[in-house]
Structure formats: C-alpha cells, structure tokens
C-alpha cells in the first residue's frame, strides 16, 4: 500500500486538567483510505485525544496538523471546515428537534439567511439511506430508541461529507444488524479514500475493520503499528501491564468466613439475572468496562435502587434490604464514587462530616452529645491518619483525604459489609496505599469488602476474588492465581479465554 500523506495528525500533544496530566506527548497520524484503531483502557486518554483532533479542546503544547500544515486555534467549526467529523460516544443530539434538523445542525444549508429545508431534505434523505434510517425525517429524536439515535448521530457525521471520520464507540448501543450496516459503511468510506479513526472496546470489530492500531496507556503511546498478524490476546497485551511496585499490601491467606451476601437471579438497573456472593473477610472486586452495571449491583444490594432476586440472603437475613435505612441496619454501608456530591458535605468541617451517620445514635434525649462526638471524632481521625485540624472544611482536603473521610464516617456503625464504588479514583498514590491498607485491615477484622473499580491493577493485586461484568451479566469470575490483568480486560471486552470464563 502506498504511504499517503496523513490528512490529520497530532504531533507530541500534551493535555492536562487541573494539573493532572492526561496526555503526555501523543502522536497519531490518520491517512486516507485506512481504518485506524485507537485502543486503551478506561482513562487512558482516548476521549481527550479525540476532543483535540476535533477542535473541542486545545492542546497545552504540541500541534494538530491538517494536510501536513499545523493549525493555529482549532475549533469544532474549523474542524468541520477542514472536513473532520466525529461520531461522539455522548450523543450530540437535541431531543425535541426532528431527525432532519439534528442531522443538519451546525451545517445547515441556507437561502436568504433561512434554513433551506428543501436542500436539507435532499441531503438528509441521502445520508439516511446510507445508514438505513427509515423513520420519518420530521420525527423528533426523543421518540427514537438509543440505537436509532446512534444511527442519527452517524448520519449527522456523514452529512458533513467528511474526509476524516472519527467514530468513538459507535456500536455500543447498536443491534447486530445496525452494527453490520455500519461495518459496510466504514468499508465503503475507506475505499473512497476517507481517513477513519475507530475507537471500540469490541476487539473483534477492531480486528475485522481496522488495519492499523495506536494504543494509549496512561496518556502515552505504547504501540503504533500495523494490525496484521496480531490476535485478540496480542491486542490485550498491548493495553495492560504496568509497574505496580509495592503499592499493594500483601494478600492475607485466603480464609473466608461465613456468607454475608448471597443472591441468585439478581436484577437491578443494568444488572440482569446474576448470581453473586461474598464471605466475611473477603475483598471482592467488581470489574468491567465503564457502565456495565457495576454501580447498579452495589446500589441494588444497598437498597438504593429497585432490585429483585430469585433468592437472597444479606447478613443472615432473607431478602434484599428494602431501602437504605434497612441496609444500614443490616450492617451494609456504601461509599459512592462521586464523593463530592454524594459522599460528603463539602463546605462542612471534617468533624461534622465524620459524625454525620452517628448523630442519631449518639444523641441523648434528642440533644447532641458533644463530649461523645468529640471522642469519636478524635478516634476516627487517629485511625484514618487524618492529620491536622478537624474543624477545617472537607473541601480543603486533597481528593485522597476526602475519600478517607467518606469511608471513615461509616466506621462507628461497625459495618459488616462495605460497598465501595471506585474508591481510589482521582486519589494520589500515597493515599491509595493507605486506603488499600485500610481495606485489607477491614477484611482481616472479618468484614466483607465489595469494591467496584475501573482500575485493573487494583482488582488484580487487592482483591481475593474478581467478578467481571459485561452488559449487566457476569462475564467471568476469577479467584486466586487466575486473576490477571489479561484475564480481566479480556473478559471485560468479551474475548473467550480458555478456563477463565465462569
């Protein structure tokens, strides 16, 4: 194949948010007539890179080049003018506007300053025929199912007659039939000389459609090579594996105690008909790609969202907790992923956050027990190594220390089951280590720790057992030596591995 000049390039781009580097010197070149895959785990920097390539964000340093020429200030409008279109994972549609108006939005044909609806109709009809959208064009997008909206999003990108088309997880909500139409479309565009960038967690699609791959890991490029001769496991190997050092405490000898949680035929939110169990003294990890039902599993067990189970036993009581109060009474506590909104009252002091769940228990005759509270606060602060004045507002603490407060406030209830949702997201490495030590300590005290995490090494090195969810079902259940990054990522992405699937 002739090595043609790239249509769109990123050269040594850096980008950070709030001092947190996301991309650290990334190069990528999209050439005409080639489908280029972009792979990486959650948080590797894929979305940020797409936003840079499409003008939605500006790089901190480095350049974006179109046709080999660096562009100055890039904007979505400038990107469109250069023939770059993006199918976003987060749909860019307006629910109350019609299919046709959504497809034309931002690129309307005009006549006398007004939208030329006749011209719009012609153009939209053509792209809808290409993607197999047969719904009336005047139908509001709000009336479409998610998969059909995704097809509208794809038609919207095609309407702009792109030379470069970026597809971010285009098939995540499509049926097999729709995905097939899209695959055909991608091949047609490729043969016409369009440069395509394809982001997907479905590695079989990547292998079927793409000829070149760039792999991102922790904001850097770890592979930029042809895809010929690489199989699914080879791709997974390119994506995982990093130094873990001595971040994780040694795993205690597995000696699980009594069953604390056992459910069968459990459904809640995205979770469909799964079995799950955990014993005292265990740390059970829940892995998978973002949004496969991990949070719903925790919330369902916690009684925070409607859930049902064919058979359930929680803390030696039959049935699921009916609500959060019942779950707390049964010894379950939940630490949310979004600690700033759900876990803490940010402007209030560390002390008042710490005693919030215990206020009622400590009260005497309806009045607060100041002395008891002060003792409890001192004890918790010591146990959690929270340094300094507990009268400071919680928002003055670093993310990691905030997380410790969100965790610590539950300890006076002496919980038997801790449900943790991504407890180390955005937490610095030192505090991560402290949190891991704490969790190990909880398990050693005979508590059950259930931790949903988007951080694969954490699942591998911290957990005694790992349940991988995919599309609301259990894709794999791994224990002991079988837990590895390859096994977790492979199961999360739906690759069959001998002996790993439960």
């Amino acid at each position, binding site marked *: 194949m002739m090595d043609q000049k790239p249509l769109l390039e990123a050269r040594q781009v850096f980008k950070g948010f709030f001092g947190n580097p996301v991309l650290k010197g990334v190069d990528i070149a999209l050439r005409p007539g080639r489908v280029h895959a972009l792979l990486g785990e959650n948080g590797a920097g894929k979305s940020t890179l797409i936003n840079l390539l499409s003008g939605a964000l500006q790089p901190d340093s480095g350049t974006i080049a179109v046709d080999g020429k660096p562009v100055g200030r890039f904007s*979505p409008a400038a990107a469109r003018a250069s023939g770059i279109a993006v199918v976003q994972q987060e749909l860019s549609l*307006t629910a109350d506007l019609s299919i046709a108006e959504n497809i034309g939005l931002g690129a309307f044909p*005009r006549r006398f300053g007004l*939208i030329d*609806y006749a011209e719009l109709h012609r153009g939209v009809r053509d792209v809808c025929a290409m993607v197999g959208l047969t719904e009336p064009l005047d139908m509001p997008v709000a009336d479409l199912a998610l998969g059909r909206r995704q097809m509208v999003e794809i038609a919207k990108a095609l309407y702009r007659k792109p030379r470069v088309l970026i597809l971010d997880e285009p098939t995540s909500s499509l049926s097999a039939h729709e995905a097939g139409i899209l695959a055909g479309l991608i091949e047609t565009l490729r043969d016409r000389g369009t440069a395509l960038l394809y982001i997907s967690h479905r590695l079989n699609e990547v292998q079927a459609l793409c000829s070149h791959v760039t792999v991102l890991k922790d904001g850097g490029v770890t592979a930029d090579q042809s895809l010929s001769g690489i199989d699914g496991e080879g791709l997974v190997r390119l994506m995982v594996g990093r130094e873990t050092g001595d971040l994780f405490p040694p795993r205690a000898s597995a000696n699980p105690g009594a069953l604390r949680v056992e459910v069968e035929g459990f459904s809640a939110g995205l979770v469909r008909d799964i079995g799950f169990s955990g014993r005292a003294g265990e740390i059970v990890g829940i892995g998978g790609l973002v949004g496969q039902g991990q949070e719903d599993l925790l919330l369902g067990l916690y009684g925070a969202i409607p859930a049902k189970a064919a058979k359930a036993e929680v803390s030696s009581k039959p049935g699921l907790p009916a609500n959060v109060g019942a779950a707390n009474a049964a010894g379950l506590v939940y630490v949310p992923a979004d600690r700033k909104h759900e876990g803490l009252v940010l402007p209030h002091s560390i002390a008042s956050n710490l005693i919030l769940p215990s206020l009622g228990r400590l009260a005497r005759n309806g009045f607060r027990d100041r002395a008891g509270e002060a003792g409890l606060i001192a004890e918790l602060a010591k146990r959690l190594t929270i340094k300094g004045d507990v009268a400071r507002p919680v928002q003055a603490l670093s993310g990691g220390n905030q997380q410790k407060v969100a965790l610590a406030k539950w300890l006076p209830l002496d919980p038997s089951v801790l449900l943790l949702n991504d407890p180390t997201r955005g937490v610095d490495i030192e505090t991560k280590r402290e949190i891991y030590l704490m969790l190990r300590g909880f398990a050693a005290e005979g508590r059950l720790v259930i931790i949903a995490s988007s951080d694969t090494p954490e699942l591998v090195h911290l957990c005694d057992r790992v349940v991988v969810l995919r599309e609301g079902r259990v894709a794999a259940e791994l224990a002991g030596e079988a837990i590895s990054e390859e096994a977790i990522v492979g199961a999360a992405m739906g690759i069959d591995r001998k002996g790993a699937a439960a």
Partner: protein
Amino acid sequence: MSAVSSSSWLYGAIQRRRNRGLGGLYLIVAAFLILYAVLFPGILSVGGFSKFTQNWFPLALVTMAQALLMLNGGITLAIGPLVSLGAVIAATTMDGVFGVPGGIVAVALTGLAIGAVIGAIVAHLRLPAIIVTLAGSFIITGVALILLPRPGGFIPGWLSNTLAGHTPVAFLLLVVVLVAWKAFLATPLGLGIYAAGDNPVGAFRSGVPVERAKVVAFALSGLLAALAGLFVAAQTGSGDPVIGTPFTLNSIAAAVLGGVGFLGGKGTMRGAICGSLLLSVMINVMFFLGFPPVAQYIAQGLIIVGAVAVPELLKAWRAKR
C-alpha cells in the same frame, strides 16, 4: 424514503409535529375562551375583542421573552423591571426632538442592549442566569426610578388611541411578532437556541455558536420586554417606574402553563403563547365570576401547580400500565 419533492414538505411536517402534546392545552384554552364568551358576550364585538387582546398583548410579549430564555436553558428575573424601564423611556423621550419614532427606537435599543449585556455576562463569565438577572433587575429598577421618580411623563394621545383604542391593532402587532419569531426559528441561529438549551456540549461539538446563541437570546428577550413596556405606557397614557413588577412571575407562570420546561430545549413558543392566553383568560373569567382577589391568587397558583403535575402524573400512570 418517499419521493416527496415539494420544497415545503419537510418544514410543514416538522411544524405539524410540534403541535403534538399540545392538544390538551388547545382544548383547555378553547374551553376557557368559550366560557369567557358566554359570560361576557361583548368579546365578540370588535371593541370587546380589541380590549381583550390589549390586556393579553403585554403578557404575551413577556411570556415570549421568558420562554425564549427557558428554551435556551436559562431564565430571567429582569422581565418586570425591563417592562417598567421600557415604559419610563417611552414616556420621557416621546416629547423630544425625534418624537414618537425616536422614543420607539430608544426603547428598542435599550432593551436589546441591556439584554445583550446580561447575556454576555451569563455566557462568557459562565454565571448562573438567575443570579445575574436578579442583580440586573435591581439595577434596572433603580435606573427607571432615577429617570422618572413618580408616574408621569408624556405619551401622545394619538399613540394611546392607536395601540389601545377600539381597533385590534395590538392583536395585529402580536401576529407580526409571531411571524418574526417563526422566521427567526427558521434560521440556523434560531434552532441553535433550542439545541444549546437541550444539549450545550453536543451543540458546541456540532459547530453551533453556543455563546452567541445565548447572547442573542437574551438580547431578543430584552427587546420584547422593553416593547411590552412601551405598550403598557401607551395603554395607561404615562410612564410608571414600577408598573412592570407583576410581569416577572406571570411570565414564568404563563411559560410553565404552556409546557416550557425549566431545563432547556423542552417546549414550544406556540405552547407558551397559549399559556399566556390561558392565564389572561383565567384572570378575566375569575374576575367576572366575582372571585375575591385572594381566591384568584390561590386558584391561579393551584392551576399552575396542576399544569405541571398532571402531565407528570399521567406519564407515571402510563409507565406503570
């Protein structure tokens, strides 16, 4: 796809769809209008119709001013003060060298400019619209009181007779405003106001100038509110620096009655106009039925809560079945 090639097919089809979900509102408005005509048959004469539409007209304008911003994902608390300021400027400029045309231009430019400044602050400094317009409402009230501390000023008699006499000029003006709105909504920027209200990030990524759409929405809103003030001044024959106060909350009430959502992008201008008509008729009907003022306020409040709650309850009831 069907091979319909009529140039207006798509536009017409989209417009017809937009009536969807408004059928109930149309029925209620029609029922109240019939009730009104039965209680007060005078409305069927030219004079009665003119008076009725004159009472409705300023509310219709401020409701449009409010709905425009709610569709864009914002809200404004500065409607009433802008109406007052419009009235004051009309009453203090029309005896100047440029006469009535000069006064109208002054009112329009003031509304546009104040709206644009508020919009620029909201869009570019990313401050919440409710706070910026609350602050703006105090400042605008202060300016109106400085310009005209007591009700007074001068409005030529012929202008009052033309706008608020025995001819349906107000109704015709409303038709003109609605046609202008339709034309605006058929421009890319007009639809951009909707898109930026429902999904600002998506609209930005699609190439919609989201910030410009916001500034334009606030400017047009300011223009409509100030013109409503000019009309009120003509109606009363003078300027009053606090006459607009009730319009702020009534504009929100009418927009909500008309099905405009608080979170942006949801609702239609035709619904909002119907909402303002409904509110206007309701107030009149309760007046003719001899409700005491207290009961009128309470009934008005209950009807507005009901208008928001009933569709939600219906939705929940349908979802359960």
